[in-house]
């Protein structure tokens, strides 16, 4: 189960609304490489993970991704708080405003709604961990793209924190992959499915 802690993992204090910026960073909430896909990916994969320590890592990183999702949502909320009608008409935000007013809803920056097809839970430890390594890099690239085009330091600082966490998670998933590989039978050099084909686990 989960318990809630009433604070953000990284403080968000945005003093000036900017719906345009909100419509860009929303991709890290509900976009293809966003925090919702990240948390759902790890928290779904963990049940069949054959290595107990790696299952624990998926729980802990998945939980941290939920905290990241909250940081991104807090940023979207503050960037669209107390908008004037003129501000609501901002290009890039106007279409979203029609459907959601200023509520927070998971979508990609280009308007594609959140979709579970953004992530995979494959039931093969090797496949899943490679998926996770790629996911962390894709999220890192998205943060790089955002940081490149956003000037406001109040928005950039939390984004820089979140970007750094992608790098750490990539490192930890790399270590997890080595642990799973070390536990395979030496003849399984193509690293086939260790949780279904149990004869391929180290005797």
């Amino acid at each position: 189960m989960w318990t809630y802690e009433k604070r953000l993992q990284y403080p968000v204090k945005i003093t000036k609304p900017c719906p345009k910026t909100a419509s860009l960073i929303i991709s890290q909430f509900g976009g293809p490489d966003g925090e919702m896909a990240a948390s759902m990916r790890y928290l779904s994969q963990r049940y069949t993970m054959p290595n107990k320590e790696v299952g624990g890592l998926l729980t802990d990183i998945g939980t941290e991704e939920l905290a990241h999702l909250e940081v991104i949502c807090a940023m979207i909320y503050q960037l669209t708080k107390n908008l004037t009608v003129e501000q609501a008409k901002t290009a890039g935000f106007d279409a979203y405003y029609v459907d959601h007013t200023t509520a927070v809803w998971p979508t990609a920056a280009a308007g594609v709604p959140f979709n579970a097809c953004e992530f995979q839970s494959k039931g093969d430890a090797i496949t899943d961990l490679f998926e996770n390594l790629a996911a962390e890099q894709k999220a890192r690239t998205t943060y790089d793209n955002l940081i490149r085009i956003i000037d406001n330091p109040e928005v950039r600082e939390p984004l820089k924190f979140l970007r750094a966490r992608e790098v750490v998670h990539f490192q930890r998933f790399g270590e997890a992959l080595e642990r799973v590989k070390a536990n395979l039978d030496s003849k399984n050099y193509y690293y086939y499915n260790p949780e279904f084909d149990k004869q391929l686990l180290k005797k």
Partner: protein
Amino acid sequence: MERMQLLKEIGEVSFMVNDLTLYLDTHPTDTEALTMFSDTMNRRKQLLKTYAEQFEPLTMDCVCPEANNQTESYTKYPKQKHFTWSDGPLPWEGGI
């Protein structure tokens, strides 16, 4: 201590706990990291307790209607025994 300063320290020490957790998930016998984890966790518990006494509880485990929020900040029920979990600002309200 002031609310924002205390909250900042809780954020820092809790982040250390988060980061050490992931490290220890893949290095469970690193004694140096284990010592650091214990020290940091103790500091976190102490700060959460101090914060809940002065202001609102941040976790359910810190909820204690008799002892919480002695400064009566951000509460709808000053001088009245109440469920202190609802005291304080919401986390997304921009650090107050």
